[in-house]
């Protein structure tokens, strides 16, 4: 089957601004991943096409891009899902460095702001074994442990587009992962951080994040739980 790929191109060393380039692939399959098509274009049409990728099955978070106008992982969407006319563009709200590669630093900076690491300064269990946690307590934060930091969510959020000082859904998801972990002791510190002006209050439940998340994390729900936690104190 024939697939037409329209790809956003920008080479900082040659181009003043971006343009679109169209490639026609003749013998594509409907089970091809969009990533396969990009690899094909890079391999046989134009080696200069630049994009990130690694695992090729939706678990490393390298290849978030806008495909037919919506954020997704190029490796987790097949031709049969998006049709034969495919537009591929970089994710929004981050600087475009080259073609589909964006500057991820602000994204990771925001992530680091919420203290995304386990904190528990109490003495370890005396038997030298694991800290106990019931399956129910573990289930409480299961959803948000799945995040692969692909940035599909944050770069689909209108609040983040408005300005990248908004922590963004991915950072809030990370905060949720720890705040609702019964073993963690720094919920208060994190809640303070995320309830600053650039945090929770900037989420207007636009829901783009939840629809974009390739891990199907219920992000809007997680954020709402955080908002409520600041009010009820229940974590």
């Amino acid at each position: 089957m024939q697939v037409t790929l329209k790809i956003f191109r920008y080479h900082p060393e040659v181009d003043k601004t971006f343009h679109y380039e169209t490639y026609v692939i003749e013998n594509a399959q409907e089970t091809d991943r969009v990533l396969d098509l990009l690899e094909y274009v890079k391999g046989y049409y134009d080696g200069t096409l630049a994009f990130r990728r690694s695992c090729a099955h939706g678990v490393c978070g390298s290849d978030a891009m806008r495909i037919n106008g919506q954020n997704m992982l190029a490796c987790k969407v097949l031709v049969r899902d998006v049709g034969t006319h495919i537009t591929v563009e970089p994710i929004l709200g981050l600087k475009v460095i080259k073609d589909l590669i964006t500057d991820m630093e602000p994204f990771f900076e925001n992530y680091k702001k919420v203290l995304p690491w386990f904190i528990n300064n109490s003495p370890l269990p005396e038997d030298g074994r694991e800290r106990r946690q019931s399956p129910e307590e573990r289930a409480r934060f299961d959803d948000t442990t799945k995040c692969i930091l692909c940035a599909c969510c944050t770069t689909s959020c209108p609040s983040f587009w408005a300005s990248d000082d908004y922590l963004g859904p991915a950072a809030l998801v990370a905060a949720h992962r720890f705040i609702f972990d019964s073993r963690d002791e720094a919920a208060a510190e994190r809640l303070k951080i995320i309830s600053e002006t650039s945090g929770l209050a900037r989420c207007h439940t636009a829901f783009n994040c939840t629809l974009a998340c390739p891990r199907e994390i219920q992000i809007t729900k997680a954020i709402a739980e955080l908002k409520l936690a600041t009010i009820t104190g229940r974590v």
Partner: protein
Amino acid sequence: MTKLHQFDVVVVGAGGAGLMAALYASRTAKTAVISKLYPTRSHTGTAQGGIGAALGNLEEDHPEWHTYDTVKGSDYLGDQDAIEFMCYEAPQAIIELEHMGLPFDRTPDGRISQRPFGGHTNNVTGKPVRRACHAADRTGHMILQTLYQQCLKNQVTFFDEFQVLDLILVNGRTAGVVAVELATGEFHTFHAKAVIFATGGHGRIFEVTSNAYSYTGDGAAIVLRRGLPLEDMEFFQFHPTGIYKLGILITEGVRGEGGVLINGLGERFMSKYAPTVKDLASRDVISRAIYTEIREGRGVNGQNYVWLDVRPESVNQYAAMDGRTNPDGSPYTVTGEQILTKLPDIIDFCRVYLGVDPLTEMMPVQPTAHYTMGGIPTNKYGEVVIDEKNTVLPGLYAAGECACVSVHGANRLGTNSLLDLVVFGKHAGLKAAEFAKHADFEALPAHPEEEVRAQLEALRNGSGRENAFEIGREMRKVMFEEVGIYRNERGMRFAIEKIHELKERYKHIRVRDTGRIFNTELLNAWELGNLLDVAEVVAESALNRTESRGGHSREDYPDRDDQNWLKHTLIWKRNGHTEISYKPVVITKYPPKERVY
């Protein structure tokens, strides 16, 4: 222009092994981690099923059993002192991960949950034992995230998206590495007392693989080019259950939860090949069984695949036939709901990539290239050794999939790789920091980056007739077909010739991108060079070993030959030629015997 950095310890690679090493090294030494991917993109994150440790949370288990299973799994090629070391360190290592916050699944009484995995047995009954600690089918993801987070917490210095291109050795000692910053194309020299390689594997030499695009054997190739040997490169693991054609892994955990393999005739064929543990035999055994089924015409619809069946009704039916029980002795049964919570990602992969719902349909699977048992030879402290006498190269360390300790021998047991990362990553980190405390910096050569600069320039200025993608494709195909699950002399000779031809063509590839910023075309071409180098030594090592053992099985030498081959291969690249030598296997408690499951 080259930028210069100085650190006591430089860790190359930010997967499980690299991060673990960094975490421990940074406690006492000034440490940097260099990674060509953002750390959380590392391949460790894709590991699914679990990490092995004899915690005995659900039933009786002992590190001693774990040791024996691993020795047996390795087809007696693993070094038993190292294996024992790893298996006895395992429970503590897992507990330590839990203390770092790793969200393991839990048992009803709040302990870390465990599941059965291939080759892990109760040594008394021979039945599968629950030893794999897990977090759904995302165990590697949780390990990677947790370790990265702990590194952030401890303010480890990261150089993200820096690709290491060369190792600087001065007078037989380690002086640092040269890396290129992807975002600018600038070279950076890292002057270091100790360097730890944790660059992962090279599964991309094969056509059907569960491995990431980034698995290009950079570490192994660099070391090889620097005149150091690689160990046991002929041993590559083919995981029995990859998604047909795509190679995406379906974890052994599926079979751990009761899934079974079914051939084209609808038979559960593993009971023929491994009467006791059946679908939970070790991987090499099952991969060969699948291949045999396919070759004898019992693939599905005459194609190269078989079914993996985890539909609840099938699971329950076969579990009843096997007399499988829960820890409390009641018969083992599952519901679709339970399978979904235990294997959510697998279900998701099948739905996305196959349009198949594993809860109601069977999954088409075929063996997929998965894990490299061989690699940079080290001792059990992660110190790189460079000859038959295990002479240590001062200041150089390796850990994780790129290293060969060797704990996996001829075949790795599932869950032992993650364990390997954590245990040996930690010890490599500790050793490197200790070394750095007493050592001085070696003086750097005048232009340390000159050689790689020349390498890249050569690629850029090649005469430009050959297509790198095409070369890569041909390499992967010939390696999968001739140096894959079954091997024979004729095929391997053909493959070696082919690799030589491809290496010649590689000198004339065309790189169109002349820029410096994110020149992925150039770096992919450089990576292809690594793959070709590695593929060559894999094929050469395999051709030389005239026996079948673990992941290396030859049609022309179908039997294990302990008389002649109970030894590790070491392979060098000198003056453009490979040189092979051997070193003995360490055997302490378990003399080799026949391996039946």
